[in-house]
């Protein structure tokens, strides 16, 4: 795809064998992220966001089957030998998970974990690694960093743990940070602080970032581009301002409408989306959103819309009857 992209996900699919049959968790996804850019990936639970990020990181479950290419910094990660991959992860390719305990070791102190990462990847000596750890903890907003080095993860609050996980992820100056629902487990006040922290460090380090979330509100002011996923596929993709100005895919529109708005009057009925996403082991022949879509017609039931360019090169969507057009037809 595009030249000069730091990360280019090319026709990536992930299949998982299950007792109910094959489950296609990610379905032919193409995405790119340029150096220093932020991509938001939005979708509801089960739509494949985590599987996509694990495909990029080459951290899929053993029985998963991956197809396609993941080009990162000129290398195809899918074909990279394991020890090269391990070197890359934690160095130029870092990740922050929803549950910080996923990436923290419960039996090691914060200091040991930070310093180990630094020493492994940057070959710093003990004293330098220690100083750098203190600086990193301070940078992510942890008060009294020297004392925190001696603490264990369970002695910290959820928000503090996530800050530590971010400090470790940032420790080796990665080129790309994948943040998978980094604030979903946190309170709204802490969420705002962590998102600000990520945005600040991303700018300061000119690092690329993929911000995965189920909340359109989280990506709105904090990303350059947004990809909306539904049932394993990217169904709409656009620069963030363009997307919020003119949503073309009925699912994106419905998703935004269903969020309670703080300036709406109490007891106003919410425009809910009826039904729920399809069973991922029983793919539909047509558009996956068809059973819930108010614009669906016969063609949507039988034919799968592909993600294609529409009015501009940047704004892609997978729909036969994009929002405005459908409204015009029915008017």
């Amino acid at each position, binding site marked *: 795809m595009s030249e000069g992209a730091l990360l280019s996900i090319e026709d990536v699919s992930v299949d998982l064998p299950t007792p109910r049959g094959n489950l296609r968790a990610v379905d032919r996804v193409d995405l790119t992220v340029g150096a220093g850019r932020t991509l938001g990936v939005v979708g509801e639970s089960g739509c494949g966001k985590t599987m996509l990020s694990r495909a990029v990181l080459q951290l899929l479950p053993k029985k998963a089957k991956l197809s396609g290419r993941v080009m990162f910094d000129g290398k195809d990660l899918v074909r990279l030998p394991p020890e090269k991959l391990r070197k890359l992860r934690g160095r130029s390719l870092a990740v922050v998970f929803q549950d910080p305990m996923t990436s923290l070791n419960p039996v090691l102190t914060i200091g040991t974990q930070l310093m180990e990462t630094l020493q492994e990847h940057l070959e710093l000596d003990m004293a330098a690694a220690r100083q750098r750890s203190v600086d990193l903890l301070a940078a992510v907003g942890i008060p009294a960093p020297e004392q925190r080095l001696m603490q264990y993860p369970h002695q910290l609050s959820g928000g503090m743990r996530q800050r530590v996980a971010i400090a470790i992820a940032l420790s080796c100056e990665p080129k790309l940070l994948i943040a998978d629902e980094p604030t979903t487990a946190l309170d709204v006040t802490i969420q705002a602080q962590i998102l600000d922290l990520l945005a600040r460090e991303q700018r300061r380090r000119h690092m690329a970032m993929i911000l995965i979330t189920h909340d359109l*509100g989280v990506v709105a002011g904090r990303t350059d581009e947004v990809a909306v996923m539904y049932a394993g596929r990217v169904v709409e993709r656009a620069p963030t301002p363009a997307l919020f100005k003119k949503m073309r895919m009925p699912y994106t529109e419905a998703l*935004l409408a269903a969020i309670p708005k703080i300036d709406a009057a109490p007891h106003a009925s919410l*425009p809910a989306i*009826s039904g729920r996403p399809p069973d991922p082991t029983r793919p539909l022949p047509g558009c996956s959103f068809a059973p819930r879509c108010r614009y669906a017609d016969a063609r949507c039931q039988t034919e799968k819309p592909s993600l294609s360019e529409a009015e501009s090169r940047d704004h892609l969507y997978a729909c036969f009857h994009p929002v405005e057009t459908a409204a015009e037809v029915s008017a």
Partner: protein
Amino acid sequence: MMHGTQPAPSDPLLDVQNLVVEYGVGGKIVHAVSGVSLQVARGETLGLVGESGCGKSTLGRAVLQLRQAVSGKVLFDGQDLTAMHGDTLRKMRQRVQLIFQDPIASLNPRRRIGDIIAEPLVIAGIKDPAERRQRVRDALSAVGLDPQLVIGRLPHEFSGGQCQRICIARALVLNPDFVICDEPVSALDVSIRAQILNLLEEMKARYGLTLLFIAHDLAVVKAVSDRVAVMYLGRLCEVGPSEQLFAHPAHPYTALLIEAIPVPDPDVRPAESVPVGEPPSPIAPPSGCRFRTRCPRADARCSSEMPELRAVAPGQFAACHHPLI
């Protein structure tokens, strides 16, 4: 709704007075709820918001007498639940039901849906199986599930949203007057969340319910509440009519919560949040105003003197020495 100079509606269905609830952990006391008073009028929805661990669920459980209060009263329809025991309490409690945050975990995985929903009827002593079956069917239809398709199945066969519908049916089957909804949509996806919020509003109208709606998401709370109470570290900070409270928050903590909501509009650049840190431990809450360690307006008085709820506008009350309005 306007309520003059008293925070209390004149004839509340629920009247919580100066409730104190504590937990003991390793010889220390967790001050989970420290002197909370609130009232819910008949037919009203009172929203209760606050960060994780501030005591919302504890308050809900103490209202239901599932957790004994250290002191304070819980008047339901004029009668003090804290002074009731045995059958009297059980009878009263049938009028108050609870819906939990995690719908899947709150259903017994080994029981069929029909039996799960019939259980409150059995406990209430309704002996006629035909009547029980009919009421289970009615409750399921009311929440938008087809009784025929649902009754014989097990919880794991349903999605989170469907399980929450089942929980709502279970809460409604006894025809209660009052329902405490403890984060009923927090575990659900955005598209399902709106369905359940609409359903709760529908059920409220249909069954003539009074609701205490607990959540940490302010926009969700505002969507369903007539009045909103804001809680911080075991105490009430502010209570008032929803629109008024969101348009003109008086307590700095309410303002902080509103500011932190992510807005789905890229033109609204998120305000670089003030570095207000995290809530202190409820084992050793700060002296004076409990919010003072994160409050941009705190001064000496805030650490020595505990602010009481005072009227700041008609129907709106804030516990702050330096309110914003």
